[in-house]
């Protein structure tokens, strides 16, 4: 999130799209209600009428996988009706920047497409620079090659009628949403968007969010109280686990992982983002300091200037290698790995095309499965269709502590890092995860000390000293993450003092300032609210630098006065020469006519309406999901995103416009369960409330297929099938797409064969192996399925009396 949960209450218009906030982030709804109580309008856009929709002032439906068409129509509407914030667009975005004359877009393809490689050469998407290397601009926004005019041109095709044909949303509904949300384009109005996996789990996932980001910058809603682009993430610490670099492509603090083409630190640092524009702060220019400080936290005294601070010991990816989830399990399926850790995860149910994952696990020599409860991954060898006598995989199942049985911090979606204390001991022999990894590494190191082995340096030189009185001490890790001034031994006050000469260490620069000489900031519980905006700066701590709303200098005018006096997030005090309010997104003086731009993490210093860095185009464009119900994309000749990676063969197959799979299917969650249900399926209250997998369908579809409410049905795709209980409901309705009637169904994904015994299987047996070309997040929210009545219904229990 750019903003945070309490900040919902500061909005005038709240759009929840690609999510179901009332059911999946229930307690946060109180801040939507607080906004509504003050007169805010709440809009919900979703294929399905949910409990969120019941609270919405405006609810409209769209077919799964058509969000860009919907949002592209909104961009056109905002431009056509001059609803945009002209000051903001001119000063704080790249709308005035001039694009390379070779840039083009024709019939669904941007310039530079290579059909053989299914990739773009992005060089023609570049922004033009003058002799000094500063971006060329036309502040009148009239140049036909300026971003603003290209934007207008690109979305001129997204007419209400065209959008309606694609999304199935009636024109009047589209207009209602566009008009209402468009009212937030004035400085005294704030609009916010809340999204979740309904936007990310698509082959156009990143561009869904880009489309909304464009809307938010056009309307001047970024960097303000009550605004922002806000991801409602699915796990209590998925923000933190991302921040801490548990992904193949990033080290902690979003530093890129080293690659083979950067063999030395110097080579790595050559890729540091740069700008020649003195008005751009380009905060990423400090990256070399953060990497060296990170390496010092990895290798301690063994990291020296002479050995490039241990950079050669870090593993390196091949130049364009993508080691993300779907590729990982594809490699496992091919037999690439002998060993595997499933630590606090249940991929046998959580992965797209889970059937493939279950087969892949059988190709391993060994697997370590760490969890609080038993799960389908640890037990895969005796799952449905498996013969344990033929499966070689050795499995170690290690019991770990639950959240109240250990100490440490987690980071919510609003970037608040909150400390949790230990309330009780874990049961039996269960241990905290940190203790397990700490002990395990010591054993690995002892083996390498004794027997040597391949490239032992990183193992032998790793700094691994987090004990107090002979026991693992999580506070020592928390301090390592914050970092030290190694010349004094004191904790860093924040990342501003980090250096690239080896005199500072810092495990994650973004978290520097979280655990200082003044104490553990994440544990703070003081409820002061000096701005009155609900920032609570002394409750816990938030990254970066306890800044509660990022890009907050975009909330002020050129002189540093709040553009919205009702919600003054920041104000420049000319006499004291300082900012008052939130922690400013850089403490430079007001921008004036030649000062520093507000978007400090972007090399150009402004928000990118034109985004030349993504793999699938600088503007979001509507493409159909890999599996869709119509043969032709109504927008262009490109049916699907032209740069997605296609997995085919073996367990990977897909079927688009196939009469065998006529219905659009999506997956979702219910309030009472969480993720694969690995915790919640074992809790008596919750499993009683939601005991089994179901399939929701419309009254019309049920009639068509002769299905009654409560019947057992088979839901089936090209990959797999599962049995479910039919819920026949008016919460779903058929769509009219390009003149045809299209039905949509949905299945929650919390279940698995292990527990409860009659609860049903994972919905991910249905989903395809295909991902977004930027993130490789799987397309679990739009695929094609069939649903039919189970011919042999189980015998009904006789009712006594």
């Amino acid at each position: 999130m750019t903003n945070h949960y309490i900040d919902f209450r500061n909005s005038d218009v709240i759009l929840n799209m690609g999510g179901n906030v009332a059911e999946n982030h229930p307690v946060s709804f109180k801040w939507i209600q607080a906004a509504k109580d003050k007169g805010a309008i709440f809009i919900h856009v979703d294929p399905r009428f949910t409990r969120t929709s019941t609270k919405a002032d405006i609810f409209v439906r769209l077919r799964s996988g058509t969000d860009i068409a919907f949002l592209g129509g909104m961009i056109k509407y905002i431009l056509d009706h001059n609803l945009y914030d002209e000051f903001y667009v001119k000063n704080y975005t790249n709308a005035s920047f001039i694009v390379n004359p070779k840039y083009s877009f024709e019939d669904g393809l941007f310039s530079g497409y290579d059909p053989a490689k299914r990739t773009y050469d992005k060089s023609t998407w570049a922004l033009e620079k003058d002799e000094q290397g500063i971006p060329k601009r036309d502040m009148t926004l009239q140049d036909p090659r300026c971003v603003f005019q290209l934007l207008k041109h690109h979305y001129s095709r997204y007419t209400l009628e065209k959008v309606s044909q694609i999304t199935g949303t009636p024109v009047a509904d589209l207009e209602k949403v566009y008009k209402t949300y468009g009212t937030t384009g004035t400085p005294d109005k704030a609009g916010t968007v809340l999204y979740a996996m309904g936007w990310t789990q698509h082959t156009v996932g990143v561009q869904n969010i880009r489309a909304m980001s464009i809307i938010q910058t056009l309307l001047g809603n970024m960097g303000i109280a009550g605004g922002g682009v806000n991801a409602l993430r699915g796990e209590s610490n998925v923000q933190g686990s991302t921040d801490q670099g548990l992904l193949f492509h990033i080290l902690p603090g979003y530093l890129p992982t080293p690659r083979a083409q950067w063999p030395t630190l110097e080579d790595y640092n050559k890729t540091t983002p740069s700008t020649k524009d003195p008005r751009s702060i380009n905060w990423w220019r400090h990256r070399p300091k953060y990497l060296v400080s990170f390496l010092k936290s990895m290798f301690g005294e063994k990291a020296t200037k002479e050995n490039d601070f241990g950079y050669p010991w870090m593993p390196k990816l091949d130049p364009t290698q993508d080691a993300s989830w779907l590729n990982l399990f594809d490699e496992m399926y091919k037999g690439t790995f002998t060993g595997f850790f499933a630590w606090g995860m249940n991929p046998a149910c959580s992965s797209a095309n889970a059937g493939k994952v279950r087969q892949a696990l059988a190709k391993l020599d060994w697997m370590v499965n760490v969890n609080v409860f038993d799960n389908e991954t640890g037990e895969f060898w005796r799952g449905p269709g498996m013969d344990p006598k033929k499966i070689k995989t050795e499995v170690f199942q290690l019991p770990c502590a639950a959240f109240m049985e250990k100490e440490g911090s987690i980071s919510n979606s609003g970037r608040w890092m909150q400390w949790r204390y230990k309330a009780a001991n874990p049961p039996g022999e269960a241990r905290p995860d940190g203790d397990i990894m700490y002990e395990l590494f010591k054993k690995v190191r002892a083996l390498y000390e004794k027997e040597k082995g391949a490239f032992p340096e990183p193992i032998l030189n790793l700094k691994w000293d987090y004990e107090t009185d002979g026991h693992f001490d999580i506070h020592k890790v928390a301090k390592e993450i914050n970092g030290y001034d190694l010349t004094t031994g004191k904790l860093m006050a924040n990342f501003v003092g980090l250096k690239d000469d080896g005199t500072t260490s810092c495990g994650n620069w973004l978290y520097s300032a979280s655990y200082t000489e003044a104490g553990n900031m994440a544990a703070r519980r003081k409820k002061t609210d000096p701005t009155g905006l609900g920032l609570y700066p002394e409750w816990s701590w938030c990254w970066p630098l306890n800044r509660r709303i990022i890009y907050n200098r975009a909330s002020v005018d050129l002189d540093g006065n709040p553009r919205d006096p009702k919600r003054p997030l920041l104000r420049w005090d000319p006499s004291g020469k300082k900012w008052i309010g939130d922690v400013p997104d850089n403490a430079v003086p007001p921008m004036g006519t030649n000062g520093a731009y507000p978007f400090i993490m972007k090399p150009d210093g402004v928000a990118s309406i034109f985004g030349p860095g993504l793999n699938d185009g600088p503007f979001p464009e509507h493409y159909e999901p890999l599996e869709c119900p119509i043969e032709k994309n109504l927008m262009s000749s490109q049916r699907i995103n032209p740069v997605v990676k296609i997995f085919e063969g073996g367990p990977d197959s897909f079927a688009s416009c196939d009469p065998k799979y006529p219905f659009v299917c999506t997956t979702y969650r219910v309030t009472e369960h969480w993720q694969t249900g690995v915790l919640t399926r074992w809790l008596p209250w919750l499993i009683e409330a939601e005991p089994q997998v179901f399939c929701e369908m419309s009254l019309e579809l049920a009639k068509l297929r002769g299905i009654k409410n409560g019947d057992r049905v088979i839901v089936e795709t090209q990959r797999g099938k599962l049995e479910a209980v039919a819920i026949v409901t008016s919460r779903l309705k058929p769509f009219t797409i390009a003149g045809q009637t299209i039905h949509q169904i949905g299945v929650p994904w919390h279940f698995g064969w292990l527990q409860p015994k009659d609860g049903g299987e994972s919905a991910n047996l249905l989903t395809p192996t295909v991902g977004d070309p930027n993130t490789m997040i799987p397309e679990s929210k739009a695929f094609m399925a069939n649903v039919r009545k189970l011919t042999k219904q189980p015998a009904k229990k006789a009712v006594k009396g």
Partner: protein
Amino acid sequence: MKITRRTFLKISGATAAGTLMGGLGFDLSSAELYAQELRIKGAKETTSICCYCSVGCGIIVHTDANGKVINAEGDPDHPISEGALCAKGASSYQIAINPNRLQKVRYRAPYSTSWKEVSWDWALDKIASNIKKSRDASFMEKNAQGQVVNRTNGIASVGSAALDNEECWLYQKFLRALGIIYIEHQARI
């Protein structure tokens, strides 16, 4: 006295119990108060944050004199949740008090049809030696183009957003020191 939300609840609880007398004809208030207090009487309060979605609601965990979890409820002082919890958060004490919790280290040998309980030391020793075997056999110093890569191709990891920040950081340190590059977790899916 400044009335906080919690003292207010106590007062209104007493009032509610008091009014029972009118309906039943005899005074239940002392029994009612006793019963209400008993569950967490003398309990230790520990503040925590809910383990489920990303809102980050405050939870107070109550433990008895033996250190056993006896209750978990919303933290009224928490500025985001203000004491509220959803169905999942409100049942979180059932995670701690649950006969189905994994409590022993289990091992399934190749081609075996069942689990066997083993000791931590035995399991961690064997995992460590498996790691070394897989790493040594698959370690690549240079790729096909002759570039230095120093990585372990034969081991992969998924996990975890269910870990604390400090554990996540420690885990990535552990994996990267081993040379592992296939490092993924919930954030990708």
